[in-house]
């Protein structure tokens, strides 16, 4: 079920009303209330997920059950060694499932090509279950955190299933940690009016980014990337810039809708994006882009490898490992690995000179406008990100290389002028500018519309919902054609 679909528009209010009125209010005296409400979350989440393909419900249930069971076994283990064994068994099982569905065919094909062997009968050709990378990592975090003693294993299987399958973030994150999300399913949730209102604003902001920014950008981007050999350098750069906004609008839009939806159910999810295109260097960019995945790799891969408190050679190794694995997490294609390597190369000088944590605050803090130096830094970081997205978007390394070569023309810089003048893009460029202005003004907030109801004309309780409706209509009118969320494929 897509967030920007009529099915979800019907599904969400029904689930919301049942969640609060049937499973919270009417059976509130029952000792089973919490468990029943969690069971309802699981059922609703499975309906949401099964809308694509019900067969994969068995897989998610299996993953959930094994991870829950491993947590119990780790918790009960008499020795650290036994606990470690159970943890590793769960890691191997989960990564094994992920490998079969996501990477098996890729490795077999590459191996066969390398040794000139036929792949007949060797490929599985299975469909990639939606969101498998997201919920697998969520399940892994639980057993690792139980082993590390950061969280106690839970006997409540229903709450655990709800933690893994919670529908707003099931298919494209944020990848939640058990330490944050699981405890919320173990205690009674309370409805909070201001949180719910903020959730609605965040959903609207997410829909704007997805439907108006990403879906409109995708029209131009798809056209140029499919005919890149015939395009001028400035058109190629322009399409790369628009893809940069498309992927941000698409993915951060999804995250905002997910976080906003969770707020309606009294659940607080972690932030996934923090105005990444206002970063002053690539290290800051990675602290602001897909935060839930970046911190996941930091906590479960980078730090266990020694992090940056080891020799320089090992720091270089660790940095490359984390970026390559992060790239490969996105999909079984060399382009993702190259994209990871590209960012590792950009990151390396910063980490070796100890400047990787130079910018931990918000840009132009306490000021309306950035300094010239900050503008230059943001521009350079953005441009480096654009080059990276070309590799990410390309279907092969060869295509990425040809695309980049195509951009190396004298007139390429005209792209910045054409951004504002190309009639083909119609209003898309204006919407991108609107998004950037709002994000700049709201850069210290959780999302673009946070606190917007404090504005004078939005304080009126009757006028505010009408503004919701007008905004929604405008998003629908100016939205592009329905397109799948890019990150669903990961």
């Amino acid at each position, binding site marked *: 079920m897509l967030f920007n679909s*009529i099915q979800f528009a019907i599904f969400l*209010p029904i689930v919301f009303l049942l969640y*609060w009125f049937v499973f919270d209010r009417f059976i509130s005296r029952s000792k089973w209330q919490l468990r029943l409400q969690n069971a309802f979350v699981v059922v609703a989440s499975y309906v949401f997920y099964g809308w694509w393909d019900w067969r994969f419900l068995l897989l998610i249930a299996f993953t959930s059950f094994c991870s829950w069971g491993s947590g119990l076994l780790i918790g009960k283990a008499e020795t650290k060694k036994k606990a470690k064994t159970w943890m590793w068994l769960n890691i191997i099982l989960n990564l094994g499932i992920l490998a079969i569905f996501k990477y098996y065919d890729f490795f077999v094909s590459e191996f066969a090509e390398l040794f000139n062997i036929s792949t007949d009968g060797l490929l599985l050709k299975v469909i990639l279950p939606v969101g498998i990378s997201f919920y697998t990592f969520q399940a892994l975090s639980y057993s690792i955190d139980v082993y590390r003693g950061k969280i106690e294993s839970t006997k409540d299987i229903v709450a655990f299933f709800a933690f893994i399958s919670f529908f707003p973030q099931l298919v494209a994150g944020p990848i939640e940690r058990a330490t944050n999300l699981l405890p919320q399913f173990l205690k009674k949730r309370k*409805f909070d*009016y201001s949180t*719910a*209102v903020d959730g*609605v604003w965040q959903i609207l902001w997410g829909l704007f980014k997805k439907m108006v920014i990403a879906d409109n950008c995708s029209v131009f981007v798809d056209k140029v990337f499919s005919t890149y050999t015939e395009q001028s350098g400035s058109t190629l750069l322009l399409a790369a810039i628009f893809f940069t906004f498309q992927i941000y609008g698409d993915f951060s839009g999804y995250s905002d809708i997910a976080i906003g939806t969770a707020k309606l159910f009294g659940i607080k999810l972690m932030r996934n994006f923090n105005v990444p295109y206002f970063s002053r260097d690539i290290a800051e960019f990675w602290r602001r882009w897909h935060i839930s995945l970046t911190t996941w790799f930091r906590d479960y891969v980078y730090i266990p490898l020694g992090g940056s408190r080891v020799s320089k050679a090992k720091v270089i190794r660790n940095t490359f490992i984390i970026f390559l694995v992060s790239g490969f997490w996105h999909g079984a294609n060399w382009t993702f690995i190259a994209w990871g390597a590209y960012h590792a190369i950009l990151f390396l000088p910063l980490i070796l000179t100890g400047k990787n944590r130079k910018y931990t605050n918000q840009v132009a803090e306490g000021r309306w406008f950035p300094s010239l130096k900050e503008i230059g830094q943001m521009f350079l970081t953005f441009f480096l990100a654009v080059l990276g997205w070309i590799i990410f978007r390309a279907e092969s390394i060869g295509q990425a290389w040809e695309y980049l070569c195509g951009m190396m023309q004298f007139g390429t810089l005209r792209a910045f002028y054409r951004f504002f003048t190309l009639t083909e893009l*119609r*209003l898309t460029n204006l919407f991108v500018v609107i998004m950037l202005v709002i994000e700049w003004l709201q850069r210290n907030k959780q999302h673009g519309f946070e606190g917007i109801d404090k504005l004078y004309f939005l304080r009126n*309780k*009757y006028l*505010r*919902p*009408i503004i*919701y*409706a*007008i905004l*929604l*209509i405008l998003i*629908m*009118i*100016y*939205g*592009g*054609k*329905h397109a799948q969320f890019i990150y669903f494929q990961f």
Partner: protein
Amino acid sequence: MKRFLGALAIGGIAFFVFCGIVEYFQSQVDNNYSYKYWYMENRRHKVVTLLLGDSYIENAINPSLMGEGAFTLASSSRWIYYDDKLLEKYIADMPNLKQVIFGMGYKPPFFKSYHFPKTDDKEHENNEHEKYMYEKYMHIRYDDNSNHWLGLYRGFIDPSTLIGNNLLCDSLGYERVDGQSVNWQLEHNVDSNVFRLEYAKEQVAEYTGYLKDMARLCHLHKVRFIVITPPCHASYIANVRQEGLDILHGIIDDVRSEYPVEYMDYLQDEEYRADSIYRNSSHLNSVGADMFALRVKKDFGL
């Protein structure tokens, strides 16, 4: 909670009211579809020669040169289903109608895949848009359960056309196109996707069915049914396959076996070789449309 639900209820009501307002304004926009609908609803009694089909006819024949009472009900990208439905809707109440001229291009019998899921997204989207336009402006549904008129839900509201006039055709339904497009020989040319035998069999059967129904309606109401294949540029003909032409002519033979049909194939006619009469590889421009209108008028004695 009550406060929140109250706000959502107000927002929900406001949302549906605004949806209604947007749909209403959109339905009031003037365009080729709404004009042709209006003309058929109000002026159909005057029509002597009715031109049906897609852009191959809409742009290829200037009705003002076809004699008194000619009107182009043809419309670009139209699937034959709508031609049949329009004819069925109006023919019984067109007392002066003498002939129906239907344009059968080389592509449409194989190409306009309304039903086939294997067609690409772009094609599917175009088809969905067509269904929306016919439902919204000509009140013809694709099927009984179709709800394509909901432009907001379908994502077919074009902000630039929300209010205003998008009428491109003249009072006789003719959309005049002057000059040529850039890369005109490549535009609208036959590409490898057009002639897909795996779809052709089912598609051609459906096409023939609708054509046969149009012939039946004309026969029933004693109206001449003329089918023409309009001329195309040499760059287009170079990609035309004999196999396709055989199927095309087979369709006419099939219809003729049951109902009278007058047919003329101008696809490779020597008279239409000049570059200057084409807007693109398969569509005549206004100069070509004048020429072709006079030719059809002469050939069929209109």
